């Protein structure tokens, strides 16, 4: 049995829902556009939705071999428990992604590029314990300074 069968099972369910949404969306595009079927802008998305639905159903059937749905749910439950509760690697990854999200969606929105990048780099370096505070500040400062110099002065790219 593949050790990733619960991933196959979960992803197949998500993909079936997505394929259904694509099919409904393409039918609605076809109706609104009012063209003959072969000129419709909904044709290609519709074909892709149908193909995705077919492949996802095959994937679901394949994932149910060796145990069925009950076993897959149990595996998914066990995996979620082991991954999301008290696992330091997961916590590290989630906090890392959260810091990247804060940088992308919040810091870059409110601050200039150099300040946002400096804050982000220092925060991530310190969180990952990649360097001591002074070293992190120096590394981040030099890196951001070099990037600003290279892009704004050398490439003449207006940074955000």
């Amino acid at each position, binding site marked *: 049995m593949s050790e*990733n069968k619960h*991933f*196959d099972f*979960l*992803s197949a369910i998500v*993909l079936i829902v997505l394929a259904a949404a*694509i099919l409904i*969306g393409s039918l609605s*595009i076809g109706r*609104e*556009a009012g*063209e*003959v*079927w*072969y*000129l419709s*802008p*909904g*044709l*290609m*998305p519709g*074909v*892709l*939705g149908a*193909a*995705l639905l077919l*492949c*996802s159903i*095959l*994937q679901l059937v*394949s994932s149910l071999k060796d145990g069925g749905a009950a076993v897959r749910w149990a595996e998914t439950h066990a995996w979620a428990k082991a991954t999301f509760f008290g696992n330091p690697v997961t916590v*590290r990854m989630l906090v*890392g*992604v959260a810091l*990247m*999200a804060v*940088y*992308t*969606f919040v810091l*870059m*929105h409110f601050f200039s590029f150099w300040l946002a*990048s400096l804050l*982000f*780099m220092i925060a*991530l*370096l310190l969180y*990952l*314990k*990649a*360097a001591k505070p002074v070293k992190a500040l120096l*590394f981040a400062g030099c*890196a*951001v300074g070099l*990037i600003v110099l290279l*892009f704004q002065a050398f*490439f*003449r*790219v*207006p940074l*955000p």
Partner: protein
Amino acid sequence: MGFTYLIQAIQTAVQPLNLLIMLISTFAGLVMGMLPGLSATMAIALLTGLTYNLPTQSALISLLAVYVGSISGGCQSAILLNIPGTPASAATASDGFPLASSGRGGYAIFLATTASCLGTLISVICVLTLTPLLTSIALEFGAWEFFLLSLFGVIICGNLTSGGNALKGWISGILGLFVAQIGLDSMSSFPRFTFGNVGLMAGIQLIPIMIGLFGFPEIINAFKVSEGKILKMSPFRVKEGFVTILKNWVAVIRSSLIGVSVGIIPGVGEDVGGWLSYWASKSTSKEPESFGKGNPTGIISAESGNNACVGGAIIPILSLGVPGSAPAAVLLAAFLMHGYRPGPLLMSETPEFLYQVCIYLMGAAIAMWMLALIVSRFSVRILGLKKTLLMPLIYVLCVIGSYVINYNMFDVRVMFVFGLIGFLLAVCKYPAAPFLLGVILGSMADSNLRRALTISDGSILPIFQRPICIAFVIVIVLLILSQFGLFRRLRRNKA
């Protein structure tokens, strides 16, 4: 005429600024390729955005140099760490690490680097000879052929990159094709799946998707992967290295030709080229049992095979507008961004482009050979850098790379979203290469399907009346059936 273009390309390449850019880019590629977790695709994707404001020729030199450098750089960590810097060098580790473990790391790196250089140079000859041939075939293509070509690309890429479960590769490709449909429809400007968002109206830009798909998961993975143990470099005699290469000239040529052939197949990458070449050398060797225990032929075969894929992957870009591998897909996007239109008309619209690419590839291969041997002296230090120290900087570069395409923060957010998608795909073992190929080929598939149906008044019969279409249909059907065990069953029945 071709000779004139070659001379002009050499003149451009040897301009001081371009030479400097070639050296810097090759060095950057080597370092990126050397560091496990930073792939060739990511290196080119990053550089595509960063070279946006450079003169076209300089940008072209930079992109090709970083491609050659990063594919070759992966061998150093494969040999010293037993962790391939890029998937392309996975086969190199099989014999490289045992050789380094026996105190011959320097010798192994010399063999790998020289074989990489030779592989690239041989592939350049193939680019020069095969591209015009493939282009002349591609000129016969109509709308149906282009539609089937995009379908073929996604299906074969799905088959070969999915690690045994082709369904996952196909699903990934279909998702990519779907993403390409988002935005205003190219034929009637009808908004598709935009949900009223102005940012989505123009469609999702390719570069942020690429950076997200390939860069983001590697950054997240670096948060959890522990650092490996590095061996020390050992001195060796260059003459001994050259003698070994000379003794293995058959392996170099065979592996390079395998690499070029694998590179031509849409979406199939340098890793497959390296493994196939390694397997071919092992199966034809008189001492197959010595492979995996530090056999120099293994290193030479793997490295000349994977680097020859670089040229091979560029052939379908230039002749069909279809990339041969994931890094080549990024390269295609970069070519488009810099105003080139790779495809059947390239040879008539910009014939000099083929010769420029070949000269720049050759220059990059030679620069890579020299730099890699110099860099190998410092490899231990570079490989000793903490990835957690580099990754915040890499993410900042990902942000800039996505931003500079349109000077738009929307693209940066797109990069983040596709980064999460790329990470989830990686966790569930769905290959990212068919997804990227789907995004690239999606628009071609859509417009050509509808154009073909318009010409035939909605009939699909022309597919069965055109020879190239029939060939495509047969190959596509066989590719699909092969994944459902048809041939295995046929063989069993015969027995």
